[in-house]
């Protein structure tokens, strides 16, 4: 009887071996290129714990495969991989691409043993004796039931130290989600395979550092390209790029890895001193799931910010309708880290500062308030610029006694060559505007605007009248710009300008 069983099992084994394909594992890429794309709603600085951009990772791997059918498994890919997007180049006849997300965990391991043989090990608390016994796992869903030679028992309902032991890990369970391709080749393959995929958990920003020159109308505009990798996978010596512009994204369903704890519940186990006076208490909930396997979490957060020297400047090229910035040397984009390289430096960009105020019904407050300060640049070569400016934030500095002095911070959207760039900064406390209503009929109003300047230099001031107001007459000339009425005035040094305007409210 026993001999026959062994023979049958051996035959089954042989047939499995005959069908089995060669499994070749590629541990890590030999060469990697990463192109980082911004989040659709990119603004401000990046939250390193919540990176909403993505990356295209292009890995070159050296592989050798035997002739015939084989399975090539790619390890060391980014954990944010969108498996649907994976492209494999350089292989012959790819039968299929697979990504398996059923992972080895206590619960899935036990599940895979359902109906199968396990060892049951008990250690005596009194003597330390180890007793091992054979058992068959009969249930593992909600509490573990085992069949031993003596009968049916429930695991850990006994008060004993007992644990089931498996003999091997089923081939269907792996430590991490794995991407693999099944392929067939008449000849052995030795060469490079290129694996390209999209991965979430990356982002980048442009950040501009502007230092006002002593002349006051020019500045040095230095731009940082700040890349962040929120993935657990780092990319050593990677060809690194960033893409500016907006690309459309669609949702992609990525099967979440299946990881489960062992659920150990028992029968009702109250003892006499625990019997409650009222309702019976529900059985204890299953233990909380254990933390995800260490590989799925970063054991330690290393958000080291690496600043490389600005002697390296990203090279720009056009990519369809987008702008691609290439870091000219291979750099290491480490796991969970942020890296900065220079995007460009424009030594002498012309700019103008002006103050702006929006006159509307809601702003009639009779009190002096600060007007917004606008930093205005023309993105043209004759103004010292004339290059694509990716969206980002700007920090404006001046120099005082050899030390930088912060003047303000603002942000801007993507600006193409030839466009006007306006960055809204905090107002200055010495430039105030007061809006006062002088007369009010049903639809006919009169308002006074008083602009004051405490500086020893004159400045430019612009008032935009909200669309609700149709000016009838005013004490100063108004202009029409961008479909609105404006008053643009030079406010003299330490001076005041006053505008009286009569207008009608529109329907």
């Amino acid at each position, binding site marked *: 009887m026993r001999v026959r069983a062994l023979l049958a*099992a*051996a035959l089954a*084994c042989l047939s*499995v071996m005959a069908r089995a394909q060669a499994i070749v594992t590629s541990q890590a890429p030999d060469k990697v290129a990463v192109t980082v794309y911004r989040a659709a709603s990119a603004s401000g600085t990046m939250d390193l714990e919540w990176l909403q951009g993505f990356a295209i990772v*292009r890995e070159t791997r050296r592989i050798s495969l035997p002739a015939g059918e084989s399975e090539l498994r790619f390890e060391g890919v980014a954990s944010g991989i969108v498996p*649907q*997007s994976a492209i494999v180049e350089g292989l012959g006849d*790819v*039968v*299929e691409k*697979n*990504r*398996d997300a059923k992972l080895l965990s206590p619960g899935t391991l036990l599940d895979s043993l*359902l*109906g*199968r*043989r396990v060892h049951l090990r008990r250690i005596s608390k*009194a003597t330390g004796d180890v007793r091992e016994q*054979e058992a*068959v796992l*009969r249930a593992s*869903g*909600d509490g573990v*039931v085992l069949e*031993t030679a003596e*009968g*049916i028992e*429930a695991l850990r309902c*006994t*008060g*004993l130290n007992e644990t089931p032991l498996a*003999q091997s890990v089923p081939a269907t369970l792996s430590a991490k989600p794995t991407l693999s391709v099944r392929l067939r080749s008449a000849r052995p393959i030795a060469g490079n395979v290129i694996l*390209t995929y999209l991965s979430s958990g990356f982002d980048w920003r442009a950040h501009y550092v502007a230092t006002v020159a002593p002349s006051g109308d020019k500045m040095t505009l230095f731009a940082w390209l700040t890349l962040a990798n929120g993935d657990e996978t780092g990319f050593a010596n990677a060809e690194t790029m960033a*893409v500016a*512009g*907006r*690309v*459309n*994204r669609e949702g992609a369903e990525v*099967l979440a*890895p*299946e990881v489960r704890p062992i659920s150990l*519940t028992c*029968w*009702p*186990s109250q*003892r*006499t001193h625990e019997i*409650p006076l009222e309702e019976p208490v529900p059985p204890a909930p299953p233990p909380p799931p254990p933390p995800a396997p260490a590989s799925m979490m970063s054991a330690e957060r290393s958000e080291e910010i690496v600043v490389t020297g600005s002697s390296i400047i990203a090279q720009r*090229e056009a*990519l*369809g*309708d987008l702008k691609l910035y*290439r870091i000219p040397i291979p750099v290491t984009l480490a796991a969970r880290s942020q890296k900065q390289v220079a995007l460009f430096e424009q030594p002498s960009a012309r700019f103008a500062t002006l103050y702006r105020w929006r006159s509307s019904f809601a702003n009639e407050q009779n009190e002096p308030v600060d007007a917004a300060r606008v930093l205005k640049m023309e993105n043209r070569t004759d103004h010292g610029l004339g290059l694509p400016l990716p969206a980002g934030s700007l920090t404006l500095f001046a120099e005082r006694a050899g030390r930088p002095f912060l003047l303000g911070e603002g942000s801007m959207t993507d600006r*193409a060559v*030839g*466009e006007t760039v306006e960055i809204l900064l905090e107002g200055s406390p010495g430039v105030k505007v007061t809006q006062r209503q002088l007369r009010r009929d049903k639809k006919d109003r009169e308002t006074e605007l008083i602009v004051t300047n405490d500086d020893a230099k004159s400045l430019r001031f612009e008032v935009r009248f909200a669309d609700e107001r149709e000016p009838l007459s005013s004490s100063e000339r108004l202009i*029409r710009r*961008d*479909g609105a009425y404006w008053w643009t005035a030079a406010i003299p040094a330490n001076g005041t300008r006053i505008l009286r305007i009569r207008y009608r409210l529109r329907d």
Partner: protein
Amino acid sequence: MRKLFLLCCGLAAAPLFAQSAIEPVLPAPSRTAQGDVAVTIYNENRALVQDRRELTLPGGRSRQEFPDVSAQIRPETVTLTGNGIGIVEQNFDFDLLTPAAMMQKAVGETVTLVRMNPASGAETRERARILAANGGVVMQIGDRIEVLRDDGLPARVIFDRVPAQLRARPTLSITLDTAHAGRQPVTLNYLTGGLGWSADYVALFDEPNGKMNVQGWITLTNSSGTAFTNARTLLVAGAVNQVQRGYRVYGGYPPPPPPPPPPGGMIRAGTQTAGRERLGGFYLYPLPERTTIADKQTKQVSFLDVSGAPAARAYEYRNGWLGSADEPQSVSSVLRFSTETGGGLGDALPAGTVRVYQRDARGNPQFVGEHQIGHTPMGSSISLATGESFDVKVRPLVVERTRINTSPRWKTRMLYEVSNAGPAPVVVDVVQDGLWGDTRVTDESIKSERLAADSARWHVPVPANGRAVVSATFDTRF
């Protein structure tokens, strides 16, 4: 021989514990109870499974269990057919085997209690009758009544058997009336959730030459909780109406059905028939060979490979009624191509996501955007907005809005400033929406085309590194 054997299947325990009487109830891990499996997968998370198994049946009435059916089986859809087999009844049992359920079912029965002396480790055995299992377990041992483990000391409870109605997993069982005893094939058909598919397209766009290469991949996902071994697989493109179900008995609530794919950029539906198998109006995509669809697996198989199909880039900007912008707005960058035979991809496209790549200066493909498409007949015109242009922008402005005399009509003058910072001339389609009712375009700088009663379109040529301005005046009731 034995060594090979141990390595091979991991059955090391078999010889070591061969003296034991108990036998595993399931075959070795590499085996499955499934027979010849054929799976037909529909888009909306649904599949039809056909499983032909060889069963050894006794003559007359017998109850057969069917392990390894999908964990998300819809039991009401099960049919079983075989030669000379009549079905008496079909059961789907979900009374699960847990320690608590086992103890409840043991009330009134006798179990073996093994106590351990905490000091010496010596074991004593007693038979105990379970009186109740409410809150705690009350038992009768001889003439004593005792609460199980009331003393806090270890005690093993050994049940003589597993109650017949308790199962490790929800189980399908069918009671059969068999004419002839013996081994015979039966066919099990059922519907299951947890299997779905969509298409993924990789489009490598060669902008200077106006061509693109497209590869299509079928992506199927299995979250059913069950692997389908060595299955013949057929994918069906199209929506089949599904009856909503109230609840699921196992594995929590069903996932909400995925939303229907957005219409995508089909601007003209095609009328050509693709050279693929069809049935009942659906295109069928059989996988070329048998495959094992593992649980929690995403599998991709190639189904389309087209080189050098014509494709072009276009720009579109759509403005809402009275839309005015403080800053120039990027226009949509659109990829246009056809699925017709001859001048296009020459195939019907099942719904999915098109990912577009272009080569960078070093010749490596880079991602430039993606868009969904719906089920697309052959011969259709497609226009996919893959992203926004960095260099081409439109600034819409309402420059004048006045009441016409005292009539209830309004005059609205709009300016559309189109700028192009790129090195090549472009044509931008500017569309003004919201022209409801009897809106008239009374004046315009270039001729518009009414796409529909409520929208007008201007083809605006913009020189390289230049700009163009379109003005239009509308006469509206609002």
